[in-house]
């Protein structure tokens, strides 16, 4: 713990800290462009210069200088002021004065810091450098003349994303940041470079010229595009969500989000269900709410009713539907739309127990049946970190392009029961072994085989430092899954139980992946927000809210309970889901016991107390016994990363990503 003096105040800093970090600990703001907490240190922007004694009688780059015992650091001296002004003047020599037409305006590091630390005017009257635009794909818009060569984007793609695709060509003043031959950035996390860019060189293409940051209402939300539950900030103007940005949460998403989470929001205004519809003579006809409820009231389902929850619904909606179905005397609720029927009596057996931050510290990881890059890009980043720390990774399933190496063992689930010797050795010798089962490995005995591995390799153990380690993980893909399981949205036989019961009325809560042909005899009441597969099969459509349009509780695949707020109102006649379910109770003539959102939430928390506190729900660490044998070819359920949910399928941006990045279509703009 070196002791240093910052501006005359003595503080202790952790060993290994840099001078910049020491200054931050002392509460001093150090301007910087190239330095970023989560990236390696480059030390090339020189904006963080401070005066350090002992040392050469000149300012030093604090980001790359280790803090040492007895240093006297000044951040307020004349030398530092002049140094910052000098660096800023140099940075601005070639930076265009186009802030009024730059999308970064208002949230630009260069703008802010030149106001705070610059000298106010330039003495440079030569021509400025101009750099041609670079094509970086459908998500990233470039204006490379604005680039100040901080190389954050290069370091992100190399270190975090693990795909070396952005580089710095040429040298000196002529240096240019580009992707190889201006190919589109082909990575699920590529758009994070937009947040990293301290200037307006890399900006968001879909959001180009849409709004200024000060016009936007910022709402804290939770992403529902996958089961990682990334923390997001929803920026809306009026009734429209214009963009989604990540929020810092070291336990979940650090400060990244996937491209899908970021850019599917334009789908929120397309293909929306904004009126109730009734199917009359085989055709869906728009009606008003009264007509819709009048029609529903004639259904008289009695206790022959069931509910299927979609992948993106919040816990409140599921709870309200369960209450409604229960009030009618049925217990048929299910969330696993595609027919999975794993046992759910012990949720620890279907949870990501290690947690995302925990998996970084694992030293041997066996992944079965999961294309992690597509199913949970944020987890992929963690796995890459684990490998960088020395973890060995083995994968079971068809090969996909990992960003962390790893050894593929085979494509059949039977590998789980018959691991090669080197894998068994690695897992049994590991201090922190982990197994991750993806959706494709849960059925056909896979979960039981995984649990058998958990027992065989003692995945649940006490570590030497006294902490608990639970290395057994299931990686879900649906944001609603863990919440649904906690609320009992699981029948013993899965959705087959619902099919067998032949319910008179089937409530589909945003359920778009169900095979509705199996419910040919049921009246399907679709409560959702997009005219997708579920709405096509529905007999009654009740327009509801998407994830940005309602407050809700979400539980991610780690069992982490998180709350989201409402950012905007739903379009047209659409209403929040719980109000629709409450009104349905009246139409059916039953009581569900809540009249307001608060009452609903309180009732839910009373029934499932874990949903009442943010953070990890405790499922215990006792895993059920596994056993049996698993067999069957593994096929990953996600065929197209950009098209996994109705919002993304409606999104023009996601469609373009899918066409261009995954299917290699040459789009007109790409050739420009």
């Amino acid at each position, binding site marked *: 713990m070196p002791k240093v003096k910052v501006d005359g105040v003595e503080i202790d800093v952790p060993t290994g800290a840099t001078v910049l970090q020491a200054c931050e600990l002392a509460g001093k703001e150090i301007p910087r462009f190239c330095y970023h907490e989560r990236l390696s240190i480059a030390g090339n922007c020189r904006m963080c210069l401070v005066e350090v004694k002992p040392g050469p009688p000149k300012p030093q780059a604090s980001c790359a200088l280790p803090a040492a015992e007895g240093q006297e650091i000044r951040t307020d001296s004349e030398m530092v002021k002049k140094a910052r002004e000098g660096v800023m003047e140099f940075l601005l020599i070639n930076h265009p004065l186009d802030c009024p037409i730059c999308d970064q305006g208002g949230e630009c590091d260069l703008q802010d810091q030149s106001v705070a630390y610059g000298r106010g005017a330039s003495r440079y009257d030569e021509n400025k450098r101009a750099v041609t635009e670079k094509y970086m794909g459908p998500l990233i818009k470039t204006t490379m003349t604005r680039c100040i060569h901080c190389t954050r984007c290069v370091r992100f793609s190399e270190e975090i994303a693990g795909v*070396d*695709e*952005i*580089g*710095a*060509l*040429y*040298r000196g*003043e*002529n240096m240019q940041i580009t*992707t*190889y*031959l201006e190919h589109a950035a082909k990575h699920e996390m590529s758009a994070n470079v937009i947040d990293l860019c301290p200037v307006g060189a890399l900006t968001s293409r879909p959001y180009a010229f849409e709004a200024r940051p000060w016009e936007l209402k910022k709402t804290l939300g939770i992403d529902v595009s996958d089961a990682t539950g990334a923390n997001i900030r929803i920026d809306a103007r009026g009734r429209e969500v214009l963009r989604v940005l990540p929020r810092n949460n070291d336990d979940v998403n650090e400060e990244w989000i996937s491209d899908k989470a970021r850019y599917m929001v334009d789908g929120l205004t397309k293909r929306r269900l904004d009126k109730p519809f009734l199917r009359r003579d085989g055709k869906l006809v728009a009606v008003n709410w009264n007509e819709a409820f009048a029609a529903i009231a004639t259904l008289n389902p009695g206790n022959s009713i069931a509910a299927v929850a979609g992948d993106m619904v919040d816990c409140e909606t599921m709870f309200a539907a369960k209450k409604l179905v229960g009030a009618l005397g049925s217990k048929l609720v299910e969330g696993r739309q595609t027919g999975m029927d794993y046992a759910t009596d012990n949720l620890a057996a279907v949870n990501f127990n290690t947690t995302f931050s925990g998996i970084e510290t694992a030293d041997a990881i066996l992944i079965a049946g999961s294309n992690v890059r597509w199913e949970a890009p944020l987890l992929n980043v963690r796995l890459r970190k684990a490998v960088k720390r020395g973890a060995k990774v083995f994968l079971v399933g068809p090969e996909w392009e990992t960003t962390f190496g790893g050894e593929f063992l085979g494509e059949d689930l039977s590998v789980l029961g018959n691991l090669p010797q080197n894998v068994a050795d690695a897992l049994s010798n590991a201090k922190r072994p982990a197994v991750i089962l993806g959706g494709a490995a849960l059925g056909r005995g896979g979960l039981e085989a995984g649990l058998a591995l958990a027992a065989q390799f003692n995945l649940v153990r006490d570590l030497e430092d006294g902490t608990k380690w639970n290395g057994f993980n299931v990686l879900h893909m649906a944001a609603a899954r863990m919440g649904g399981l906690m609320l009992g949205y699981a029948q013993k036989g899965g959705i087959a139980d619902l099919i067998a019961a032949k319910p008179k009325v089937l409530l589909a809560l945003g359920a778009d992946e169900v095979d509705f042909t199996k419910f040919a005899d049921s009246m399907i009441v679709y409560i959702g927000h997009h005219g997708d597969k579920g709405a096509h099969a529905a007999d009654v459509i009740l327009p509801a809210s998407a994830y940005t349009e309602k407050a809700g509780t979400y539980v991610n695949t780690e069992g982490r309970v998180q709350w989201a707020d409402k950012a905007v109102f739903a379009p047209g006649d659409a209403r929040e889901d719980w109000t629709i379910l409450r009104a349905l109770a009246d139409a059916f003539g039953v009581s569900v016991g809540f009249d307001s959102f608060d009452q609903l939430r309180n009732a839910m928390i009373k029934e499932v107390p874990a949903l009442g506190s943010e953070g990890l729900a405790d499922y215990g660490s006792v895993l059920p016994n596994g056993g049996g044998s698993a067999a069957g070819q593994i096929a990953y359920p996600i065929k197209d990363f950009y098209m996994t949910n109705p919002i993304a399928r409606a999104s023009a941006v996601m469609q373009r990503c899918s066409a261009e990045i995954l299917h290699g279509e040459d789009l007109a703009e790409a050739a420009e």
Partner: protein
Amino acid sequence: MADRYIEPDTPELRARWGNFAWTPENAEKAKEVVARYPEGRQRSAVMPLLDLAQRQVGAELNTQGWLPIPVMEYIAAYLDMPIIRVVEVATFYTMYNIAPIGRFHVQVCGTTPCMLRGSDDLLATCKSRGMKKGHISEDGLWSFTEVECMGNCASAPMVQINDDNYEDLTSDRLNAVLDALARGETPKAGTQDPARHTVEPVGEPTNLAAMITENHDYRSEW
């Protein structure tokens, strides 16, 4: 140097260089170069291999050689490294040619010592022979670049042509060198001043003259 750009990736370029592979001799050399670095650090060999590839391309085209995109991709695949990292290296160092080049790459130094000793004449000479910055002469013989200091200030002005330096030039001496090269001869590299052997002082030594023949202790004279 500001005019340095990668030759665009066209179907013609792919057709011409897409099947680039080491010649048997160069394959041996490449193996030897890679073996100089520790296991798993083979990408450290990128610079010598780029040079080797440039020379192989040069031998094939009878020029100084350059690095087409498919050749850089071949190196990247050979060293199992991301292609963008290879391109970064090739574009950073000016001794890698990233666009087609003539038989002789004439690099005239124009930095202060050479300029004071008459590099402007050399530039004029080159210009009069039809050389132009960033262009290959019509006969395919000459490419021309004005460069900064090449470290031969003691025998300024100088010109580097492919792997050799020609020093102590005047307009006539440069013309003689260029004519000889054009005829296919190999002129003597180094100083072109007949009175000079290497970079020894021209004429009588003026400094420490007493030390020429024997050791002399100057200290008493200070």
